[in-house]
């Protein structure tokens, strides 16, 4: 058995990282707080093929599985990409729904990118139906991460049934949890990297504060949490791709550990930045608030630890 990403999977990840580092810096995320997000990173990712990784080859996609998409979603999380990449590329694509921007309420009633989506996958009577933008009503919701442009969505039109199979809906929820877990791992890593840079520059008592043991221990704790979450996310991707019996349990383990890693990294980042970390002028807040928002989507930590416990103690 091989533990690790393949050469192609790493090449996908590196290509996405290169694109996002050039086109989705903090300034782009900040712009999304003030208005519509810059569409360029999203259209570049679409041209690269990110949105069609899970789409069958017969439909013009790459026909690959979740293990190819997850490393890319980690990069989207690292960049705090404002658009709904997990909803579109992971959940909708696996249900055979392709579109420029597709969002769903399967992960929770507050839906991101509600004002720019052209497709809405909504839970209906135990199944899922697809609605066009003119077949829904949006109730904007102010959330901690304003770059997501969230709203509650209510169907006003008939829609098109995508599936009424409960097992397919459950699998879509597992994929949503997995994709969001991957984004959270990327976010956690980014917050830690920003903080490591900061404590290497910020001086106190004539030295960088990163040289003090108390600060180092905080950062090490965050690193340990990230290193525990990453393999769990990779495992869940493999389990879902292979249709393993443990896929749901593994998705929950991944989401729980990614939630905890992001929580630890966010707490440590804020603590080590001191007062500047609380300000909206500091880039850290862009990543902090995204992590707070994503931790609650597709099931919070309590939900997922209960699911794992249910399997272990049944």
């Amino acid at each position, binding site marked *: 058995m091989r533990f690790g990403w393949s050469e*192609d999977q790493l*090449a*996908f990840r590196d*290509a996405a990282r*290169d*694109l996002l580092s050039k086109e989705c810096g903090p300034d782009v995320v900040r712009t999304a707080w003030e208005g519509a997000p810059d569409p360029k990173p999203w259209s*570049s990712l679409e*041209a*690269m*093929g*990110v949105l069609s*990784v899970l789409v069958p080859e017969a439909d013009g996609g*790459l026909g690959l599985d979740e293990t*190819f998409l997850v490393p890319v979603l980690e990069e989207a999380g690292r960049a705090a990409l404002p658009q709904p990449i997990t909803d579109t590329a992971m959940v909708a694509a696996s249900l055979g729904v392709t579109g420029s921007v597709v969002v769903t309420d399967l992960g929770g009633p507050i839906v991101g990118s509600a004002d720019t989506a052209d497709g809405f996958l909504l839970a209906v009577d135990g199944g899922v139906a697809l609605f066009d933008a003119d077949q829904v009503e949006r109730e904007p919701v102010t959330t901690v991460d304003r770059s997501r442009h969230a709203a509650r969505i209510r169907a006003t039109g008939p829609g098109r049934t995508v599936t009424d199979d409960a097992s397919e809906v459950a699998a879509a929820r597992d994929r949503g949890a997995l994709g969001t877990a991957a984004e959270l791992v990327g976010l956690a890593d980014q917050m830690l990297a920003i903080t490591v840079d900061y404590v290497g520059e910020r001086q106190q008592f004539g030295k960088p504060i990163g040289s003090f043991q108390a600060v180092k221990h905080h950062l090490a704790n965050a690193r340990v949490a990230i290193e525990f979450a990453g393999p769990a996310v990779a495992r869940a991707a493999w389990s879902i791709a292979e249709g393993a019996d443990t896929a749901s349990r593994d998705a929950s383990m991944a989401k729980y550990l990614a939630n905890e890693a992001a929580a630890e990294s966010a707490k440590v980042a804020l603590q080590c930045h001191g007062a500047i970390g609380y300000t909206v002028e500091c880039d850290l807040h862009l990543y902090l608030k995204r992590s707070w928002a994503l931790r609650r989507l597709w099931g919070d930590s309590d939900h997922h630890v209960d699911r794992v416990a249910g399997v272990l103690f049944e």
Partner: protein
Amino acid sequence: MNIVVCVKQIPDPADPGALDPETKTLKRDVKLILDESDSYGVEMALQLAGDEGTVSLVSMAPNSEVGGLRTALAMGAESAVLVSDDALKGSDALTTAKVLAAAIAKSSPDLVIAATESSDGYTGTVPEQIAALMDLPSVTFAKEIALDGGTAKVKRQTESGYDSVECPLPCLVSVTAGVVEPRYPSFKGIMAAKAKPVEEVTVADLGLDAGSVGWAGAGQEIVSIEDAPAREAGEVIEDEGDAHERIVAFLDELKVL
């Protein structure tokens, strides 16, 4: 239209490694990537070739390294020739040009494109040396290239603007970073690149004498290496009513105004 692009594979600038105190050269035992300055040349070549022409790559790298070549192949180049040979260790710019010229000559291209300079060596001399060795006309610092029959029409970047020049094909053009916006490799391109041909050749395959390349053939000797001096503190200008004039004078001296 048969276009050859010279590409260099370099240590990742984000993790550039270090100089080897024994050989006094850059350690290249790390994963090498496509020099970003070469991605502009690859993109320019792909646009000029269109659907009818072909774009191939020529590179010289140690340890049979193809990581950077795969990136350029994923962008759309069709094939590559890699010159990799232990005898090339220590090669200077002129030797590099001799090796690349021999490799390029095998395909008799209509146009050779190179970056103005690499992002790790910065000699900026190799493209013109290749042109001289191959007896090709060359144009440097191209910011725009158009092909018209048997002629390359080039806008050549200058300090104050650009010169419009024409050059008969075949020729060599070195391009600046502003020539075009390089495309990102697509996922399909990344997978397809694995199946594209990369011909690895040695110095002997190119008909060159191993004794004339590498350390043996280098016309230079690296006597010592030292760390670059730490960046000096900038000048603080106290505004006594004339700060704007001093800033303008400073920028003027840098020729950025």
